[in-house]
């Protein structure tokens, strides 16, 4: 009996020691400032394959009531299970910003990331940022887009990839233009890609790709277009948010 009690005592002491040492391990993030709002600096609306990290880090800034950046404010990132942050919480740097690397979850779809902090009144301040995880089909679609579509459908021009958008008399729709493209059914998009713009009374500058792309390629492209649409398309799949 006595032995038993000693055992319990030893165990509980050990457990206590472990918990204490854990507490000591996670270096206390000493917050000195308080913000009133979080704004996104960069890194929102990025695309990445499921489970992989976003190409650019996510940067958010904490501002006070006057809109000036506040250093040393604790910002925490959270999202649906499967999404990881490196780091998951950090203090803002002297310019009021926090940078984190984000890896998206294993399922294709839109992910909502929440960056949060507490203001002076200890009220929670949130910023919600959307990112997009591409599954197999969308990844294939993205590659096809880069090869065949992007030069005209993307107005952004770089030295490596000069955009043809400005040279076209009838402007193509960028694929993230959800307002327009979400109204087109899959069948309509398939028809335009396969038979060209004139199939739906649109510009002949959009050529027919039906003899160049396979049916599965066209489906992959549509899956990609649906995935990147902003505002989101209904067929983009579910939105993964933080569990309440």
């Amino acid at each position, binding site marked *: 009996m006595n032995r038993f009690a000693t055992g319990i005592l030893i165990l509980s002491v050990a457990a206590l020691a472990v918990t204490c040492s854990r507490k000591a391990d996670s270096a206390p993030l000493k917050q000195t400032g308080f913000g009133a709002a979080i704004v996104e600096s960069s890194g929102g609306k990025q695309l990445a394959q499921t489970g992989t990290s976003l190409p650019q880090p996510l940067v958010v800034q904490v501002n006070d009531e006057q809109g000036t950046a506040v250093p040393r404010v604790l910002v925490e990132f959270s999202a649906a299970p499967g999404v990881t942050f490196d780091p998951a919480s950090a203090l803002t740097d002297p310019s009021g910003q926090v940078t984190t690397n984000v890896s998206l979850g294993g399922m294709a779809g839109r992910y909502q990331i929440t960056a949060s902090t507490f203001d002076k009144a200890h009220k929670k301040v949130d910023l919600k940022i959307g990112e997009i995880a591409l599954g*197999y089909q969308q990844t294939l679609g993205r590659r096809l887009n880069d090869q065949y579509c992007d030069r005209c459908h993307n107005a952004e021009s770089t030295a490596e990839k000069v955009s043809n958008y400005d040279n076209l008399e009838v402007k193509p729709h960028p694929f993230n233009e959800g307002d327009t493209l979400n109204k087109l059914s899959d069948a309509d998009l398939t028809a335009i890609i396969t038979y060209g713009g004139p199939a739906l009374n649109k510009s002949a500058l959009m050529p027919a790709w039906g003899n160049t792309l396979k049916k599965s390629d066209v489906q992959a492209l549509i899956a990609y277009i649906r995935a990147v649409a902003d505002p989101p398309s209904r067929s983009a799949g579910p939105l993964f948010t933080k569990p309440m």
Partner: protein
Amino acid sequence: MKAKLSSLWQKLFGDSVRAFGVVSIVFLMSIAIAPAKNFFSEWRHYQHGYLSLIRNRSEANTLRRHFQGGIQQIWLPELGVVDRCTSCHVGLKEASLTDVAQQPYRKHPAIPHNLDQYGCTICHRGQGAATTVAEAHNSTLAWEQPILPAKYIESSCGQCHRGPLSGTPQLNLGRNLLARQGCVHCHTVKLPDGSSMKPTDDPPSLSHIADKTTREWIYAWLKDPQAYAVTSTMPNFKLSDDDARDISAFLIANSTPVPGDTAQVSAKPSSDPAAGTSLYGESFCASCHAVQNAAGNIVGGDVGPELTRIGRKAKPEWLQAWLRNPRIYDPPTAMPHYRFNDAQVATLAGFLQAKTDSDLLANVHLDSVTPEQIAHGKRLVSDYGCASCHEIGGIKKPENFAPELSRIGSKPTTQLIFLQGMQHTLPDYIAGKIRNPRAFSPGLKMPQYTVTPAQIDAITTALLSLNDRSYSLPPSLAVAAPAESDYQPAGKAGKLMTDLACFSCHRINGHGGDMAPDLTWEGSSVQRDWLAQFFKNPGTLRPALIRRMPKFNLTDSEVNELTDYIMTVYQNPAIDRDSMPLSGYSQGQIELGRQLFYGKYSCQGCHIVDTKTDKGYIGPTLTHVGARLTAAWIYQWFKNPQALRPGTIEPNRAMSDEDARALTAFLMSQKGGGKQEAAKK
């Protein structure tokens, strides 16, 4: 205590009826354990959950009709697959469940394979036969195979598909990196098809290094290669000052001179300070060589080494000889032999020599060499396996210097030694080992590589695909990689093409780079006069391109040699280039072609025929196309562009013969000012 126990015994087993009753109850309860376990099993719970999930959906009846209760199983004896995953993942094949985010009920995303044909564990790993979540997904003591994290899922494609796939960018990148980062110089990787993975980088020979650079530079480079060039793939061996000193001493002492690789150019560099910059630009050096600009961005190609601080490295007399003819120092180099004249060599060398920064060699002060240092340096060079990558005179390339990585994707976790705080899974181990090899033991020889987290994930993906299954796959399922061609052109023209390093950019018969157009059918495609003129003065066909054909200052006889060879040998058997005339098309046909060009096919979206009105910047400019291409090629191109150049982005329009003929007539009428321009030069 004893009294209490004996009274309890009396109560339960006091007489035979009581004893019989108690024993019966215990017996019945133990019989009930098995059905109860079944009744309360996880999969039943999930199946109930699924039924209540679909109850209120509009297509509930269809879904219920598809639903089958009980343990489900996909059994594929040929692949050794017994997958019961579908017992819980009941909605995998339901196309209408796109909006369901909750697992295990999500619909499986679209993939090119049928789930019934391949099962689940071939791609996702895990224990297919298990019927509880913990046993199926996680590794347990009895079962070793946890679920593969989503970010490595493409490794599973690589088990059967041995070549690149358009849907698996990460796997393709990882395989490229294994070859390009030099991993396979030291680690043997035997592929399932029996061949060994070959490195694609080209580490320079160090046998003659004293001609090229100084001991101080070697020292600084060994200490931190990325301080000299951020894009360098040379890893950091974390050498001590003394070790770096001794290795550099040995390499310089061991170096033998190459006759003719150093030369003093008598000509003076051009007095125009901008001449170097413009010669660098005109020669399109940036197509292959990168330079880090003031903002820290890397600008330029990655075929050759980065030149940001080349002036700190190259000895002036070596650089001049190299620019004059790089093949003297390094015969197989990817660098073309530009035929620069002495003034150009002096100008370009002066321009490159000025690319320096002040601090790279600022703190390097090496005393004179002792024989002990050289001997120690030699020992270090063989200890660190330098000769696995670099050719070093007098040192043999070590065999099996590092552990073989074939089947690394099936290495049991019990054989791995993990770092503290590391997840005990194989992917985490591999990624950790690439990220920081020396963390596993300071005595390890594997150096520190400069790779991004995304590159580490890609390499890990490629390594995980080398597992037992990929080697034991039924041959019918394996999809072979496209065969690598080692095509070499023959004769005098072949030698010339090697000297000009055509294959560094162009691909012919499956061999060569992909920076510039494939020339396999060039002889059917272009007109002889145009080709000869192009060699003398390569104008650009695509105005938007920043990588272009450089001017090699070829002699007339060299131009003739090359042109004749290309026109005779690189012919497409399906095209008779004389079957259609180069000119003389009727005005009516040309006009019809013009209407088709601007109307039905709207070619002006991508091409320019009239520089005043057309703006298309995607395809080549067609203002001179009638003087450049053969009519037969243009016609066949209209009929099926991908047949002539696989992967070209020109869409196949399935044109009728009449349309193709009219468009050919129109394009052949676009001779531009080609003749006048040619006359001017």
